[in-house]
């Protein structure tokens, strides 16, 4: 479980706007281009970026991929809530203060 293939898949999504469309149209088919294990492919299809990060995927990539897969409007709170296992992130407090 090196996660290298996951990083390649995510990096491809980041570089190639068409790759996102392909992924959305046929997630399994898109992911089968990469040398992913079944478990890695499952985590991606289930949007479980937390587990992937826990197993070593660079979080620059999970951060980049989340809004591509889930839409930009949930950033950063929904992403961070996911990464915190469902708990709202501490940083939300900072956004609730008036910004001067």
């Amino acid at each position, binding site marked *: 479980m090196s996660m290298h293939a996951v990083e*390649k898949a995510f990096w491809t999504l980041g570089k190639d706007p068409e790759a996102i469309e392909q992924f959305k149209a046929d997630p399994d088919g898109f992911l089968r281009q990469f040398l992913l294990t079944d478990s890695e492919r499952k985590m991606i299809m289930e949007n479980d970026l937390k587990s992937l990060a826990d197993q070593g995927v660079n979080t620059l990539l999970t951060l*980049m991929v989340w809004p591509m897969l889930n839409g930009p409007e949930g950033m950063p709170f929904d992403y961070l809530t996911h990464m915190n296992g469902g708990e709202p*992130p501490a*940083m939300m407090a900072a956004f609730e203060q008036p*910004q001067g």
Partner: protein
Amino acid sequence: MAEIVGGFIVSHDPMITGNPEIANKKQVANVDAAFETIVERLKELRVDTVIVVGDDHYTMFGPHCLPQYLIGVGELEGPEENWLRIERYQVENNVPLAEHIMNYGFANGFDWAVAKSLLLDHGTMIPIHKAITPIPGVRTIPIYLAAAVTPIIPMRRAQQLGAMIGDAVNAWDKDERVAVFGCGGISHWVGTAEMGRVNEEFDHMILNHVNNGDIEALIALGDDYVLENGGNGAWEIRNWICAMAAMKKLTGETLCYEPMPTWITGVGFSELKVA
């Protein structure tokens, strides 16, 4: 003869241009003032060329080729990202000096990856755009260290690389007044559960070491300690170490420090003065 006449520690937080309105206005103003100070100081020091030491964020270099360190010796453009609210433009390189530093490195055991054409990400482009572009005629030599994508360059090696860069500048036989930028930092957790955390105590400790010119204290922290206390983003202090080492002896002076959780980082600037 070429010489390094000064240096700066420069935040490259992409929100500086990409999302200023989500942060505290006073803090944003202080950050902008720090950039203005750097611009003024570069003018006062009559700097011709800035060597900008930054790092990629898995946007420029893919998993098929991750360099430990890279120098751009040809065309430069930036930024790579379309969400920085900076329209992409050409950045002028100092090609002869960049090639000299490249060759000096090869001759001294530093096997750079080399970019003949480079599209710069925010890791160097925020500092370039805010502090160099405003001064017509000042040229940029970009250097990228592996600081955010493993395998990262050891802090010791970043120091050795910086020392070599300083030697290379000193060995350049043309008149050239050079400054170095160490970009990034300080504490930030990028993409992890802790994102938004800022460790002010850690940040002040780092800036203190910088201002003492104490590279060895920074290296002695170790990557595990830095990760634990400063987050994965704080690994970028190797960019600072590289820039500091290029200057040989120095003292630093903090231009600005702001803990900015909505910008997800401790934002620090320091002027490095040749001691």
